[in-house]
C-alpha cells in the first residue's frame, strides 16, 4: 500500500525551506562526480536544474527531444513572472506572494538564461546534452528509479542510460485536447510511462483554460495561439444581444451589444479570473450569441480604449500583439474588434511529488509543469515560470543531494536485466505501431480524442458527459490499435511514429482525466462540474468531501486505476468561496 507522505518540514511558512535545507543530508563535493543524475527535458525547469546540478559537481546527462534546448515551449511564456520583489515600500513579502498564489487571483529571456547556463556547462564539459533523444521508459530497479530508455529521433536507435537519480521536467499534457496553446511536440509520454512504472498521477482533471486565444478557423487548425491576457486591461469583451446576429461588428449599434463581463461582474469587469472569463464566453456562444464564421468566438474591442488614450498609447502597449493577431487572422485590431475564444493552456495536474519534489518512486524527481504541485486546482498566470525556476535553480538540486546523501545505492549497469526488459518492451511497442498499417492517420485519432475531451471534459463537465466520454475514449483506443497508419520504418527520422506513441499515451491519460473529473463531484478552480454551481452560476466547492489531492495508481493494462487520497491541510490561510461580483 502506497502511503502519501508529503514530508513538509516543520516551522512557519517563511522558515520551512530554511529548516529543510538545514536538515538535508549533504554530499561531499569530492564525491559528487561519482553520482550520475539524468535530467529529462531542458525547458525552464529542466535546464535550470541540470545546470545547477552540474555546477555543484554532479555528473549530469540532460535529454532534450528537440534539436536544441532553446526550442522548449517555456520560450513562449512572454507575459511575466510572479515573484516577491524587494522594491521599497510596496509592502510585498514572501507571505503576500504565497497568499496571492493560493487565493487564485516575463518568459523568453528566462528560458534563454537557463539555456545559456546549460550550454555554459556543456561547453565546460561538466554536463552532457543528448539532443533529439526522447525518453520512452523509466527503468526501475529494486523499487528505485535507476535510468531511462530513450529513442534517438534521428537514427531510431533505442539507448539505455543508468543513473543514481532521474529528474523529469517534461512539461504538461494540454495537448490531450489536440488543440491547445502548447507547442506541437509537447506531450505526456515521459510522465505517463513513469506513471505506468509506479509513479502516482495526481489531479489529472485540473486543466486551465485561457480565455483570450485566437479562435479555430478550420479543420486544418493545428494549434491555438494565445493572445496575452494583458489585453483585457484595455479591451472590452462583448457579443451581440440578438442571437445569430451576423452583421459585421461595426454595424452593430452600441445598444445592441452586451458587454456581458462588465454586466455580470461589475467589480472586476473584463478582468475576472481566467476560468470565469472562459466559462462566460462559452455560455454566450452556447446561447447562440457567438460571433465569427464558427459562432465560437466573442469580441475583444479596443475602440473605446483608443478613443480614451489614443492610437499611439495602445500601439505602445499592445503593438506586438496586434501585429501578431493581424498576421494570423488578416484583421487589423485597431479598426475591427479581435475575435477570441478560450483554449486549453496549462495543466495543473501531473505526477504526484512530496515537498522534496520526489514522486512515489524513490529516486524519481519531477519538476515544472510535469508535477502536480504548487498550483492546486487553478494556476495563477505567470506562477509556473516562478515554479520552474525556483524548483530548478534552488529546490531540486538540494533535494536530489539529500536523496543521494541519504541512500546507499547499489551500482547498476545498462546491461542488467531490468534495462534489457525495458528496451524490449519499448521495442515491441514501436514494432506494433509500425505493423498495424491501418487506414487512419495519427492526427485523425488525435483530433477525435481532442473533440471528446473538449466537449465533455473541457470548460464545463457533467456526470453524463464524462461517462459517455470514458466509453468513447475506450472505443477510440481499440480503434487506434487496429486502424492507425504509421508509415515508414523505425530506423530513421519518423515523425509519425513519434506522434503515434504520444497519442497512444494521450488516449490513456485522457481516460484517466475523465475518471478523475467524474470522481470529483465539486467545482474547483479549473474543474467545473455543472451539477455543482451556485444559483447564479458560480463554481461551488465541497470542502467536506473533496479537500484532498486525488492521486491515481496504475494497475496494469485494462484495469481500473486505484485512487489514493492525500488530505489537504490549510495551516496558513482559510478556505473561502470566491466572489468577483
Amino acid at each position: 500500500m502506497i502511503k502519501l507522505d508529503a514530508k513538509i518540514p516543520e516551522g512557519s511558512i517563511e522558515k520551512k525551506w530554511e529548516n529543510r535545507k538545514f536538515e538535508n543530508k549533504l554530499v561531499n563535493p569530492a564525491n559528487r562526480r561519482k553520482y550520475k543524475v539524468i535530467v529529462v527535458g531542458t525547458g525552464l525547469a529542466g535546464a535550470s536544474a541540470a545546470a545547477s546540478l552540474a555546477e555543484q559537481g554532479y555528473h549530469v546527462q540532460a535529454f532534450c527531444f528537440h534539436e536544441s534546448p532553446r526550442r522548449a515551449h517555456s520560450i513562449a511564456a512572454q507575459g511575466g513572472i510572479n515573484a516577491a520583489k524587494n522594491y521599497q515600500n510596496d509592502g510585498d513579502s514572501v507571505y503576500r506572494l504565497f497568499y496571492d498564489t493560493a487565493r487564485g487571483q516575463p518568459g523568453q529571456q528566462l528560458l534563454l538564461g537557463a539555456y545559456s547556463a546549460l550550454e555554459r556547462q556543456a561547453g565546460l564539459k561538466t554536463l552532457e546534452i543528448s539532443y533529439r533523444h526522447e525518453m520512452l521508459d523509466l527503468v526501475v530497479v529494486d523499487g528505485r528509479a535507476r535510468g531511462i530508455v530513450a529513442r534517438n529521433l534521428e537514427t531510431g536507435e533505442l539507448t539505455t542510460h543508468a543513473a543514481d537519480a532521474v529528474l523529469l521536467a517534461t512539461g504538461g499534457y494540454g495537448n490531450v485536447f489536440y488543440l491547445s496553446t502548447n507547442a506541437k511536440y509537447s506531450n505526456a509520454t515521459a510522465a505517463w510511462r513513469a506513471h505506468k512504472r509506479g509513479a502516482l498521477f495526481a489531479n489529472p482533471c485540473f486543466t486551465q483554460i485561457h480565455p483570450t486565444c485566437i479562435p479555430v478557423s478550420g479543420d486544418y487548425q493545428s494549434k491555438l495561439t494565445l493572445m496575452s491576457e494583458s489585453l483585457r486591461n484595455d479591451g472590452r469583451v462583448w457579443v451581440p444581444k440578438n442571437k445569430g446576429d451576423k452583421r459585421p461588428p461595426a454595424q452593430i449599434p452600441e445598444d445592441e451589444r452586451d458587454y456581458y463581463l462588465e454586466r455580470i461582474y461589475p467589480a472586476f469587469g473584463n478582468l475576472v479570473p481566467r476560468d470565469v472569463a472562459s466559462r462566460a464566453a462559452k455560455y454566450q456562444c452556447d446561447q447562440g450569441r457567438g460571433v465569427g464564421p464558427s459562432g465560437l468566438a466573442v469580441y475583444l474591442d479596443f475602440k473605446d480604449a483608443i478613443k480614451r488614450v489614443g492610437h499611439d498609447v495602445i500601439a505602445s502597449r499592445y503593438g506586438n500583439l496586434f501585429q501578431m493577431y493581424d498576421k494570423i487572422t488578416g484583421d487589423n485590431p485597431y479598426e475591427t474588434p479581435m475575435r477570441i475564444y478560450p483554449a486549453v493552456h496549462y495543466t495543473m495536474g501531473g505526477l504526484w511529488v512530496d515537498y522534496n519534489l520526489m514522486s512515489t518512486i524513490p529516486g524519481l524527481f519531477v519538476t515544472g509543469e510535469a508535477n502536480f504541485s504548487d498550483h492546486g486546482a487553478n494556476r495563477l498566470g505567470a506562477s509556473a515560470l516562478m515554479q520552474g525556476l525556483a524548483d530548478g535553480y534552488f529546490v531540486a538540486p538540494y533535494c536530489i543531494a539529500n536523496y543521494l546523501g541519504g541512500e546507499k545505492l547499489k551500482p547498476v549497469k545498462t546491461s542488467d536485466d531490468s534495462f534489457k526488459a525495458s528496451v524490449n518492451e519499448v521495442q515491441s511497442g514501436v514494432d506494433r505501431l509500425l505493423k498495424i498499417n491501418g487506414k487512419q492517420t495519427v492526427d485523425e485519432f488525435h483530433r477525435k480524442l481532442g473533440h471528446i475531451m473538449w466537449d465533455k471534459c473541457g470548460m464545463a463537465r457533467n456526470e453524463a458527459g464524462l461517462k459517455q466520454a470514458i466509453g468513447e475514449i475506450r472505443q477510440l483506443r481499440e480503434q487506434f490499435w487496429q486502424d492507425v497508419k504509421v508509415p515508414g520504418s523505425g530506423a530513421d527520422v519518423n515523425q509519425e511514429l513519434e506522434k503515434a506513441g504520444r497519442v497512444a499515451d494521450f488516449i490513456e491519460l485522457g481516460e484517466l482525466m475523465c475518471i478523475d473529473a467524474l470522481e470529483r463531484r465539486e467545482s474547483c478552480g479549473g474543474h467545473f462540474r455543472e451539477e455543482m454551481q451556485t444559483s447564479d452560476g458560480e463554481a461551488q466547492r465541497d470542502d467536506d468531501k473533496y479537500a484532498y489531492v486525488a492521486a491515481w495508481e496504475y494497475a496494469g493494462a485494462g484495469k481500473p486505476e486505484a485512487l489514493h487520497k492525500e488530505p489537504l491541510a490549510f495551516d496558513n490561510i482559510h478556505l473561502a468561496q470566491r466572489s468577483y461580483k
Partner: protein
Amino acid sequence: MSETLNLKLKVWRQKNARDEGKLVDYTLEGVSTHASFLEMLDVLNEKLIKQGDEPVAFDHDCREGICGSCGVMINGAAHGAQLGTATCQLHMRHFKDGDTIVVEPFRARAFPVVKDLMVNRTAFDRIIAAGGFISVNTGSAPEANNLPVGRETAEAAFDSAACIGCGACVAACKNASAMLFVGAKVSHLAHLPQGQPERFRRVTAMVAQMDSEKFGSCTNTGACEAACPKEIKLTNIAQLNRELLRASLCR
C-alpha cells in the same frame, strides 16, 4: 477573394544526410487561405500518408513564431516573402490560386540536412556553449534592481536578444554566414553590465567557434536582416566587428 487555393508544390525530399535528394512535384487542392504555411504542409502530409507515401519531415513546434524550430526556403526566401515572419506565422492568404511553390531546406554546410526539410542547427548551440553566457553560477545572481540599466541600453540589448536562433540569416546569406546570429548574441551581452567581465573573452571564443563551424563570412548584402523573423538589424554585425577588434587590441 477565393477562400481556397489549388497549388503546385515542389518539395525537397532527401532520405538522410547521405542521400542526394531532389525536388518532387505535388499538387494540393482546396487549401484554405486561413491556414498557415505549416498547416498546408500538414494537409499535404495527411494526403501522402493516405496514399501510402512517406510524409515530408520538417521541424516545427510552438507554431507562434518564438521557438525557432520551423524554417524553410519558400520560393527562394527564408520563411517566405513576408518580412518579420517565421514560417509558422506565414498564412496562405499571401499566395494565389494556381501558384507554384518551391520548398527547400535551409541550406548550409554547417546545417546538414537530417531529412527532407529538417536540418541540424546544433552548430548554433556550440557557438553559444563557447561563450554566449554570463559566468554567474545559477541561483547566485545578485538582486537585479541593484544594477541600474538605462532604458535605451536595455532596449538595445532587448532588440538584439529577440533572436530565436532559427538560422534564417544563415539560410538567406549567399555565403551561409552566421554573423547576424553571433552579432546579436554578442551585442546583447555587450550592452548589459552583467556582460562586461567576459566581454572580450566571449567575442573571441564565439568567433573562433563560428569560424570552425565552416560558416561563410559577411559580405554585407543585408540578406540576413531581410530574412530575420525578428527583424534584427545589420548593425549588430558592425558591433560584432568592433567588439572583436577591441578584444584583440585590449587583450
